[in-house]
């Protein structure tokens, strides 16, 4: 097990947000945390990332307890997380302050290429589209060569076409770099398109309601009966009929 979440509980004052969360994530696995707004899935990701200490329970990574944020595990926010005062290459190089200049340059060039920002190295974030900013943030995270990525609704602010493209991009990068990914979303389709396993959280206080294995190889065909069956299973889990 890469990431082990044991009996995590969280309360803000008297409000119980998370209860008895148990979850193991394998190295290289793509896991989505799915749940309705306010179910505590972002809180859970922040706990796993070491930004908030839990009220109960422990998180270990490679057997080592998490006590704070760590450059081996990088958190990716919505696109607003990039630093607006730095250019594309300065953003990507932000975490590379321990590397030599030559290595820094090489890594920046590599990740500029990987996320398709060639030609924009000297641009500032305000000159980029939302999707480009998001790719920039992913590149900044990957540049420090973490083994785990935490993504907190990273595509939530993008339009639906860009979002689809970004999912494909993320999967391509995931295949290339083989990181362990924990991805928070409230979008059922998104979780079924991306994840190896979808962890469905109940409404507050959040608990693990079920874990759905998405046993469809990539690239996934969105009209495949298996895709539709799994999607509908999760719709059912959340208590929604899949009709508008």
């Amino acid at each position: 097990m890469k990431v082990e979440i044991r009996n995590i509980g969280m309360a803000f004052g008297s409000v119980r947000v998370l209860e008895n969360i148990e979850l193991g994530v394998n190295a290289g696995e793509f896991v989505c945390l799915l749940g309705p707004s306010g179910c505590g899935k972002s809180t859970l990701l922040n706990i796993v990332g070491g930004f908030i200490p839990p009220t109960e329970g422990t998180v270990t990574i490679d057997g080592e307890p998490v006590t704070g944020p760590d450059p081996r595990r990088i958190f990716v926010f919505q696109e607003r997380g990039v630093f607006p005062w730095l250019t594309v290459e300065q953003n990507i190089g932000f975490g590379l302050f321990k590397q030599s200049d030559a290595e820094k340059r090489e890594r920046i060039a590599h990740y500029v290429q990987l996320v398709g920002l060639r030609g924009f190295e000297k641009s500032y974030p305000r000159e980029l589209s939302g999707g480009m900013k998001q790719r920039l943030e992913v590149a900044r995270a990957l540049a420090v060569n973490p083994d785990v990525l935490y993504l907190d609704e990273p595509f939530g602010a993008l339009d639906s076409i860009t979002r689809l493209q970004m999912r494909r991009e993320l999967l391509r990068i995931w295949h290339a770099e083989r990181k362990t990914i924990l991805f928070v979303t409230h979008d059922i389709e998104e979780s079924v398109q991306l994840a190896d396993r979808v962890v469905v959280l109940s409404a507050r206080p959040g608990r693990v309601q079920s874990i759905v294995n998405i046993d469809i190889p990539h690239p996934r065909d969105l009209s495949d009966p298996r895709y539709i069956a799994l999607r509908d299973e999760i719709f059912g889990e959340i208590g929604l009929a899949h009709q508008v």
Partner: protein
Amino acid sequence: MSEHRNVERVVLPLVVGGLLLFLWHVAVKVSGTTIFPSPLAVTKGIRQLPHLGAYVADSLLRVGFGYGLAVLLGVPAGLALGWWSALARAANPLMQMLRPISPLAWMPLAVIWFGVSNVAPIFLIFLASFFPVVLATMNGVRNVPPMYMQAGRNFGLSTAALIRRVIFPAVLPRVLVGLRIAFGVAWLVLVAAEMIAVDSGLGYMIIDARNAGKRYDLVIGGMLIIGVIGLLLDTMIRLLERLKFVRWAFHE
């Protein structure tokens, strides 16, 4: 399009200025006043003034020192107060009490402490510009989006590196706004301070012109020079807002 905007930004203000000068001239001629000078008389008076360059230099020097000191001390103080909220809670009542006191109220004390010297107006200008700089910086730090700090921590930055590489660049646009406000106040205070504590500078020139022989052409000339220099310096500070690493906060 951009040509059209240049016309609006340069030509229109010049037209308005010219029109006002013309009205001023006509008003003086029509009323036949002997006290209030015409624009031409003001120009002539200023040209005859022997010390004008030295006065402007003295005034700029005082503002340079007082304001420069306020920026050098105010930005770090604001960073510290924004970062350590306990410090801010301790200092805030005192600052809120000192802030509404006009810097000019300190003038008698400044004269006792520093006598008739350059130090008195420099001290007053420092007082006037220090608080706007501190407050703008402090509020800037408090309003840095938490995710910037979270990201900084995530990449393993020490507290010192976090302040230098994340907090400082993130607050810089707000600091620049504070610098502009502080400069405006400093320039206002300068003139008043020079009317009392010293015997040179643009403020002194105005009060001296009146006392020495009711030279209202020089009074108005002094006022115009103060206005024009203030405008020029404000424009220079505004140019800082176009620097690449702060532009994100000002445009689009």
